[in-house]
């Protein structure tokens, strides 16, 4: 194969990778959580000490605060 052909193949593979990533990302998000795992994200002990804003569950962190406050009130 010449270099140009290799280049074309490489670009195709890169595009395929990008498409795979996007499709799998969307599919992952759309798949419902299995039974019995609906609330695993909002567990205090697992996420405490990690401030990673890019974590997919970070948005649900606020709910951890809510949980904590509720506990304290009790």
């Amino acid at each position, binding site marked *: 194969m010449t270099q140009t052909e290799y280049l074309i193949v490489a670009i195709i593979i890169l595009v395929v990778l990008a498409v795979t990533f996007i499709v799998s*990302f969307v599919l992952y998000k759309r798949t419902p959580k299995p039974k019995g795992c609906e609330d695993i994200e909002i567990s205090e002990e697992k996420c405490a000490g990690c401030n990673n*804003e890019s974590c997919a569950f970070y948005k649900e962190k606020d709910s951890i605060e809510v949980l904590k406050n509720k506990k304290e009130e009790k």
Partner: protein
Amino acid sequence: MKREKGQTKKNFLKGIIQENPLLVSILGTCPALATTKSLEAAIGMGILFTIVLLCSNVLVSLLRKLIPDEIRTPAYIVIIATFVTMVKMFANAFLPELYSTLGVFISLIVVNCIVLGRAEAYASKNTVFDSFIDGLGMGVGYTMALCIMAFFRELIGTGGFTFGQIFTFIPYTALIIPGAENFKISVFQNPAGAFIVFGLILAVMAFYKNRKAEMKAWEIKQAKLKAAEDAKKKLEAQKANVGGQQ
């Protein structure tokens, strides 16, 4: 939209002090421990990081209305990876010493939680200018935190500072404290030293935070005591008053 006065300044300072990405949020720790062997390397890493953060923040906030919510993360990762690759190539071409010193850690900016985190949490919701200022503040804050760590590590580990080895355009200067080379503790140049310095910095910060909280609690307590005393005095005075009347 009307802007509050001083909001830009507040926005900028927030990244340096209140929400310092390294010292308060404990994010981006990998390069912080690995590239702080010398002050120069830390400054270089901070600058590259700031450039990537600024570019990605600006572009993400420019495109924030175009990118659908559902595929935000993949788009951001592609954008960040592009900028990192560009920065890497520029570093390789124009600062080859910096490139070889930092090595794989330039590529690892892609997976740095701060860049993706700021894109997700800030730039995707705010205007271009705000995102720019936010990126600048976070970048400067991170660079400063790196410099603090590198300062102690190089000072204790080698007994002074050397410049001009990585940024070759400045002349080579070695500022070694006379006599210090007999007292240097070389473990601070090793991985273990990085952990120790980072742990001690966090401990100092926690100490001041605790003391502040204690002072506040003490003030509240004093205020309460004073109030109670006042009330008591008042009561006594009333009693005396009542007694006097009788």
